[in-house]
């Protein structure tokens, strides 16, 4: 019988492989992660349907649209991720040049619009101009186009996402500052965290190697945020 030699190096190698397995998430994990978030988003969308139909309230409309767009974005995101894992490549355009670019464009566009709609749902009373929403669509399209096109240095993508984050953080802060109900700080913290982790999710697709070690943490944090919002929605809509 072979004697198993437990040397310091073999233990280290074993732990290393285990950790590598843990951080290199498989198709199963991707599907479960996406499925839970899509379901959460759709439950939020449908559980607020009646409230919107009865009131036609603009805030409820944009809040619902935000989660519909999150669901759509996650659907395309999971598609891209599964393609990555299936072909063991890190760039969708290298696998499916035309179809991949379109999928990537749709994913980034829906993602950015989801965050914009969420922000707009709390700021629409201040930003009364109808053109604001067209400006959001236009900005989301430009960002999606830049992220879809190849050839830009990595720093460009990072800078673009940083600018997006600064805009969101500033708007969320302004919304909190103008809020009559100062006790609702946790709502704005949730929105800010949702935006941060959503940007991480975009970066995870655009630059797949960027978050390799922290991928599981990002997934768990994103799930936690979506489940918290779902809980709040269900609590208030009975």
């Amino acid at each position, binding site marked *: 019988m072979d004697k198993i030699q437990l040397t310091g190096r073999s233990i280290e190698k074993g732990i290393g492989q285990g950790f590598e397995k843990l951080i290199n998430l498989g198709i199963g994990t991707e599907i479960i992660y996406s499925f839970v978030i899509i379901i959460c988003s759709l439950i939020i969308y449908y559980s607020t349907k009646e*409230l919107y139909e009865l009131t036609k309230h*603009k805030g*409820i409309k*944009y809040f619902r649209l935000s989660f519909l767009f999150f669901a759509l974005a996650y659907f395309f995101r999971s598609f891209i991720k599964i393609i990555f894992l299936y072909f063991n490549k890190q760039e969708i355009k290298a696998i499916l040049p035309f179809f991949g670019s379109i999928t990537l464009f749709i994913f980034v566009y829906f993602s950015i619009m989801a965050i914009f709609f969420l922000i707009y*749902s709390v700021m629409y009373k201040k930003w009364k101009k109808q053109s604001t929403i067209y400006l959001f669509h236009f900005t989301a399209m430009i960002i999606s186009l830049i992220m879809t096109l190849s050839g830009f240095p990595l720093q460009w993508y990072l800078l673009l996402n940083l600018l997006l984050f600064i805009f969101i953080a500033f708007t969320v802060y302004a919304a909190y500052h103008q809020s009559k*109900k100062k006790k609702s700080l946790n709502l704005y913290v949730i929105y800010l965290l949702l935006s941060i982790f959503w940007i991480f999710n975009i970066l995870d697709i655009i630059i797949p190697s960027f978050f390799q070690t922290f991928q599981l943490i990002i997934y768990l944090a994103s799930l936690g945020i979506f489940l918290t919002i779902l809980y709040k929605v269900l609590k208030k809509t009975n």
Partner: protein
Amino acid sequence: MTKRNRLEIIRDILKMIQNNHNIKPTPLLRRSGLSSSRFKEYYLELIQKGLIKEVIRKSKYIILSEKGQRFLEKYQTIINFIDEFEL
């Protein structure tokens, strides 16, 4: 007295219709506490959204629709939701 918001005005109009069966538009306008132009805006909006219905017998009466009834039942939930998410 604080200024009523849009949803509060709608609730008040619907409650008046609920409590006064077969109310006519003019008494409703008087009781709503709104100017005639604002009342007309709300009145048309409520008809358009299907929250109230006009019934013409000998004269014109207003009744609450099923959707209007549902609005009143759900009013507190709507307000709580809007308040929770600062919409």
